[in-house]
């Protein structure tokens, strides 16, 4: 038999036995290496007659290229097999679905952030004032003189006769208006203090004060602004209702109700069947306050509102008890980290 045919046959048998890329490489060296079978075969060419040599040489070359092709094919097959084996072996249990938690912002901060975002988009500055405040800014500048009945509305913590823990973020109104002239659009979030401590009151709570002073500001603007806040904080269908009320630093003064976010106004236990939830107090800035801060009340109007942050958070997130906010059980806070 022709030597090349014989070699090819043997090669094919050995190729068949090859189970890995390493064995394939060994096979390649055995046949096509520097001292491999094919090379050895080629060495015999010098013993052949001159006229046969070219034919023999061509045969060897064609054998070489056939072996190369077979090796390459086998290599592809083995690689594919190895990939498959690797994929089979590389398995992991993906069933565990507990989520690594983020830290959470406190719900009071979440509401404050949301309100700030809404108000900043409307051109409001976000400012903060001192928590330990003078009687003047907390009361007198807001048209609440010493023996005014409105002082009874707020049980005040005093440090001295004239220094107290602010009972309302409204204390920031006069501070700002003394420094800045209209147009003014400001909100002031922060802690306020009243000496109440029971299931529904906390001696410390948070308010956000809003103040706008400019020419041509009307009660309709107050309503429109609150409607926008309500639509952004709750949903676009939320309605705003005004009821008459009294605050010494606004005139007219209103209590502001929103359609209950729980039942959409149909009436439920949250809104005690009324379909409305009282969320804040507001009104047109009392001219006394403007004049007192050196802003001409004949030229300028303004509106102001003050909302309780805990109350909004309780409504928005369904938190049942104000004391949860200050207990800071990590399981409470974590719920808001999503």
């Amino acid at each position, binding site marked *: 038999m022709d030597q090349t045919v014989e070699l090819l046959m043997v090669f094919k048998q050995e190729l068949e036995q090859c189970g890995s890329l390493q064995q394939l490489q060994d096979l390649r060296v055995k046949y096509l290496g520097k001292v491999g079978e094919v090379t050895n075969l080629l060495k015999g060419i010098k013993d052949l007659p001159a006229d046969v040599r070219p034919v023999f040489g061509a045969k060897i070359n064609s054998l070489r290229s056939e072996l190369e092709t077979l090796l390459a094919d086998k290599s592809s097959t083995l690689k594919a097999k190895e990939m498959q084996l690797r994929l089979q072996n590389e398995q992991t249990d993906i069933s565990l679905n507990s989520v690594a*938690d*983020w*830290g*959470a912002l*406190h719900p009071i*901060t979440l509401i404050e952030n949301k309100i700030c975002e809404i*108000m*900043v*988009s*409307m*051109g*409001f*500055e*976000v400012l*903060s004032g*001192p*928590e*330990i405040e003078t009687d003047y800014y907390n009361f007198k500048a807001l048209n609440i003189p010493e*023996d005014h*009945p*409105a002082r*009874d509305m707020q049980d005040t*913590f*005093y*440090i*001295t006769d004239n220094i107290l*823990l602010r009972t309302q973020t409204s204390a920031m109104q006069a501070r700002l208006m003394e420094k800045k002239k209209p*147009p003014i659009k400001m909100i002031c979030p922060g*802690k306020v203090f009243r*000496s109440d401590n029971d299931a529904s009151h906390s*001696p410390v709570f948070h308010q956000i004060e809003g103040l706008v002073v*400019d*020419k*041509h*500001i*009307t*009660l*309709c*603007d107050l*309503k*429109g*602004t609150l*409607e926008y806040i309500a639509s952004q904080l709750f949903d676009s269908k939320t309605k*705003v*209702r*005004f*009821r*008459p*009320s*009294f605050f010494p630093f606004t005139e*007219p003064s209103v209590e502001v109700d929103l359609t209950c976010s729980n039942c959409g106004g149909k009436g439920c236990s949250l809104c005690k069947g009324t379909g409305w939830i009282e969320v804040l107090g507001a009104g047109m800035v*009392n*001219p006394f306050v403007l004049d007192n801060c050196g802003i001409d009340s004949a030229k300028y*109007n303004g509106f102001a509102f003050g909302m309780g942050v805990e109350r909004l958070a309780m409504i928005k997130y369904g938190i049942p008890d104000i004391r949860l906010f200050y*207990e*800071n*059980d*990590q*399981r409470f806070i974590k719920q808001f*980290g999503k």
Partner: protein
Amino acid sequence: MKVPLSWLKEFVQIDEDIETLCKKMVDIGLEIEEVCYLGDNVTNVKVCQITDIKQHPNADRLLCCKVDVGGEIIPIVTNDHNVKVGNKVPVALHNAHLANGLHITKGKMRGEESYGMFCGAEELGITDDWYPVGNNEGVLILSDSAVVGDDIRKEVGLDDYVLDVAVTANRQDCNSVLGLAREVAVALGKRCKQPDIDFAENSVATSDLVDVEIAAPDICKGYYMQGLTDVVVERSPRWLTSRLAKVGLHGINSLVDITNYVLFEIGQPMHAFDYADITDKKIIVRRAFDGEKITPLDGKEYTLNNDDLVIADNNRAVGLAGIMGGANSGIKTQTKCVLFESATFARRNIRLTGHRLGLRSDSSARFEKGIETYTNNLGLSRALHLAQQLGCGKVTAGRICNGKVEQSKQIEFSQKRITDLLGITIPENRIVSILQSLNIDTVINEGIVKCTVPPYRDDISRDCDIIEELIRVYGYDNIKGTLMEKSRITCGGKTENDKRCDKLKTILTGLRYNECVFYPFGGKSLFDKASLTPVDESKYIRIKNPIGEELSLMNLSLLPNMLQCVALNTARGNKNLRLFEMGKAYIADSLPLRDLPYEQPRLSVCATDVSFDEFRNCVLQTVHSVADGIKLARSSQQILHPGIAADIFADGVCVGYFGKLHPQIAVNFDIESECYIAEIYLDLLFGKARGEIKYKPFSKYPSVARDFAFLCDEQVAAQDILDEFLQLPLVESAALFDEYRSEQLGVGKKSLAISVVFCDSTKTLQDGDIEKQSGKALKSVAEKYGAVLR
């Protein structure tokens, strides 16, 4: 303010059902806190007439009656023997509920059918003030005029509502039946009747009986007196006592009842003195002497001081002004001559005295809300009218008047102002009709609104007050939302420091820390727990009137409240705590406070079940997000473990500290897990905030890392060794990657392994370059710190 519906109806015709009435009251600003139907506890009880009474066949003490309940005759068995045939009595029928909680069902009593039970006054929840109850024993015998078959509630006055109205602080004029009636009339579009105040005077002149001197005009703005002679003190009629009963008062005698009636109806506190007890015909309204004693009608003795106001004669105090009359001058059955007092005392003064003495009354409660001199006259006239009507005596001639009578206020403003403020236009005829309905006389002429405000409306003083009156009656539902279309555009936003706070919060939550909010105050016991030695209370800003000692001192650090929270969480089994708070420390220049203190913004961070390295990384990442040039040094903060405590410096300024909680303090708080804490002074940190980020070119050539291991003394700070490398020009970074101690190394020795990255922006570094560079560092590390290469 509690008001019976029936009393309101004295002044206003009310045809609306109770729900409509309440809604309309709410709409104009009278918040209804509670609506109470007085007959709620008495259901299915009717007026019946007894037609037959027989002895019970099987029980000596029971009677078998037949009663007519309006067309039907039913059997009732009773053990009350005060009933007679022909009596009209209340009968509780099957399924009736009674005021004392009884539930009645029909059944058999000792074999005899009984369809219900006769009721006494107690079972109906009424007293002699409501209905003549006789000796109040056994079955209530009703008057002959009672209609058989009627609901008993109609007969005894229980068919009535009491509204509890929340009156806003500016509307003290509404703290009376009359005041509320005026508002209800406006809400319903009806007229409000005036109370009857006419009376005839006798020949005795009031001024011959008494002379009044106001010695403290600053706290007594008005004082009126008029009296009665030929006084007869009796029981008041039931129409009067039943009204008082509905607002919670018992009938006492006609004169005292009249003063109470006027208090509720007109809103004017009144007092009646027995004239026989006033010596020298003299009434002096004066400040009490320091140490002066008085025994008011409650029978207790109180010691007064110069801040208190008394009503006195020439010898002694006969009343504590506005709060309670003196026991020495009260009305007695034998009283023959009476002086009525109707006055205005300063609300603050009444409040302070009442508060200090712990003595309050319906009168003082009303004075504390504010009384106008307008009602002094009205109240006094009403009392005299009632006294005459009830036959209590003859009215003395003339009135002693001290104090100025308030004039009606005139307010003028442009009609345009209404639209400017409200944003809507109210038709002119509506403006006039609304204001007239409020008794504000109004004329509009050429765009000018002229108003005359009734004297009882102390709260109305300028145009915006009038406009509020307009819109609350016109209806707030007419206000349509707009978005400040005519105002100027403003630039909004947060302050830079607020934005930095937001950034820190974002980073901390990303590091899995949860935000807390605490009260910014605490008590000595808490602060002591968070300290190795008791804290000096005098350094804290103290609340004068705290809720309790534990909430009385303003924070000087955020950590005590944080640790208390860690204690609470660990006690509840919460592990892996990651907490932070942004709050304030309240730092006074001097105490007691003269100026406002500095409120220093601070950040506290706390973690349990964490390694020091992990916590340090978190603190440094947080601080470094704001400022550069962060360095650490050993800290001596008492709250920290002395060996694991670092002060944080930013650009040379100490901006906070962190470390392991001192084990003693951990014990104080019962915190058993490893606990690390940090407190950052945000104002100081933000003071070192980096400016805008500027691009720095970086090398195109590869960087090369080299590791070095040193043997050195325990005291050598790894950062010092790193710094020696970091100051080399070609060093990009240097970091510690291993630290260990062993017996072979020797006691007090440690091994530090560091990795240094070299890079040159002009070429690929060769080994020679690196050796030259590191050689310098190795030399100075050996010289300065005795650290040798291993």
